């Protein structure tokens, strides 16, 4: 079950704007859903619609099949809801390139195996423009080599050391790691005075 993530390839989707908070990523009213199953449909739900409820020209309405999200500064700020990365993941996002990320959002992404990598304002802007002109072009986010490759060239990208280690060595999924220790867990449990050993 443990899976190493060294790079993500696919096509890009630019969402421009600083300080895009988790409430924009998933509006609060969808938090009452009893599963995450439909969260993908709620990604940027309000931002994707005009006042009459009709779909507008938001990138999430246009870049179908894209999996590499490119954003600007302080992405994922606001409430710590895990629904936000869940929604992006279920929509199809597998990696995010941005100028910077809110810390809790970044950690939540890590625990889902979604790399968040950083680059400076100009680099991000050029990448967003490139995708806007070439929506079908292939892009690669290389976590191991800390770079983004597109249009026949490569640009350096920042990867947080703990995120890099977790993803590359397949240690990002705590559920999987702890599941592997199930025999040891049973041993610890059976030694507890209040549990009857089997």
């Amino acid at each position, binding site marked *: 079950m443990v899976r190493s993530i060294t790079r993500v390839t696919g096509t890009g989707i630019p969402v421009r704007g600083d300080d895009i908070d988790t409430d924009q990523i998933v509006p609060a009213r969808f938090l009452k859903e009893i599963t*995450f199953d439909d969260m993908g449909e709620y990604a940027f739900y309000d931002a994707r619609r005009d006042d009459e409820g009709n779909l507008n020209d938001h990138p999430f309405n246009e870049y179908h099949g894209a999996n590499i999200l490119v954003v600007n500064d302080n992405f994922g700020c606001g409430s710590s809801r*895990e629904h936000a990365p869940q929604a992006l993941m279920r929509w199809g996002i597998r990696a995010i390139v941005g100028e910077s990320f809110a810390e809790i959002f970044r950690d939540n992404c890590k625990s889902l195996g979604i790399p968040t990598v950083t680059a400076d304002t100009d680099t991000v802007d050029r990448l967003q423009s490139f995708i806007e002109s070439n929506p079908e072009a292939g892009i690669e986010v290389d976590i191991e080599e800390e770079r983004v490759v597109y249009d026949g060239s490569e640009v350096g990208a920042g990867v947080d050391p703990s995120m890099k280690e977790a993803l590359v060595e397949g240690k990002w999924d705590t559920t999987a790691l702890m599941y592997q220790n199930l025999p040891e*867990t049973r041993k610890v449990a059976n030694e507890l005075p209040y549990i009857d050993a089997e």
Partner: protein
Amino acid sequence: MSSGTLYDKVWDRHKVADLPDGRDQLFIGLHLMHEVTSPQAFGMLRERDIDVAFPERTLATTDHIIPTDPAERDRPFEDEQAETMLQALESNVEEAGIDFYGLESGKQGIAHVVGPELGATQPGQTIVCGDSHTSTHGAFGAVAMGIGTSQIRDVLATGCIAAEKMDVRRVEVTGELSDGVAPKDVILHIIGQLGVDGGVGHVYEYGGEAIEAMDMEGRLSVCNMSIEGGARAGYVNPDQTTYDYLEGRQYAPEGDEWNRLVADWETISSDPDAEYDDVVTVDADGLDPMVTWGINPGQVTGITEPIPSPDDFDGKDRKNAEDAVEHMEITPGETMEGYEVDVAFLGTCTNGRVSDFRRAAEILEGNTVDEGVRALAVPGSETVRTRCEEEGIDQIFKDAGFQWRQAGCSMCLAMNGDSLEGDEVCASSSNRNFIGRQGSKEGRTVLMSPAMVAAAAVEGEIADVRSFGGAN
């Protein structure tokens, strides 16, 4: 780093492994579950095709979204979302083989009331629940913490959570409580002294003569609000009071097995020479009944004390005090006595137990609720309700003009339709007075002990319970 405390000993016993990110893999001895935070976790388990690892260490009930008006408890509920959530829980626990105390069990109630009264909560356990007030269970000398959805998935799938060990602060409560002063007043006072962020990064070990003198229900009230003081957990070392409470309860073992466990519990208490990261002393001698005047539980004062002015604070606290004055429409310099109330709410995982209703009933006996007040008594569990009815307490409440409800969280967070309206003021035995908490953005909550809620209901305004003859 602390050593030799109950927290250290319980942690060590339950630690399974070091995780690569520096956290510990901790086995969980009791996982309590309710309808609101668990369905997504079961969904994630299904996606991974994993079964619940330790269903026998899990116990479920339903509390947050349950109607408490007896007339509204027939299935399906009118509120479709509540019905959907409860159905999801019912099918999940059935499939996994988890003990479930639903509406027909006669034992349904708030998870933090049900766990202790069934004897499932025991000393020396690690306990989690997808709810921040899980700290309640620490009253038994357990390490009990609230967890989020992804951790619920972890504990279902692996029996463990990834956790970071906290610092341990000993909170020594000296002195003796005067008449009319309750454990709730003690914890409100502690939060007022140490601040709502004071416990961040810590667990609180409560001790000292005032805590030792409390019964289990009092200790539960204290530990319940640890989280309001910023502490992740709070506990009391187990003693004879703890064992006497547990003996004979449904999940408590009997005979030799019981003796063996009690002997073990004696060893897990903090050692006399235990080292703490921090020790603070709080004096309970001469403490007044406490009331909050603001919009967080740390904005609290004695009933005879003046409301502070924002000028008495700096920085963030000053801003919070200004916001409180505006929202609550209070006058700094005056006391809270005489502040008019529209609603009296008695119940919750803080103060929804039999002793809480008994204390309130002593005030209500022979009195009537002020005609301007809507008064709700919501037992914390059906077991509590039944017991109160056996003792005739329900009759005292009904005669006084209270609505006598069935068990649930009710107006504590207003997820079930019980809600403040407009800018109503609520005298509440709950634990949070945040803006909007009780269902109305303009609503105003004043936290206090159960007896103080009863006194406010009778007077139609915040009153000093000590002015009622015979009050304890």
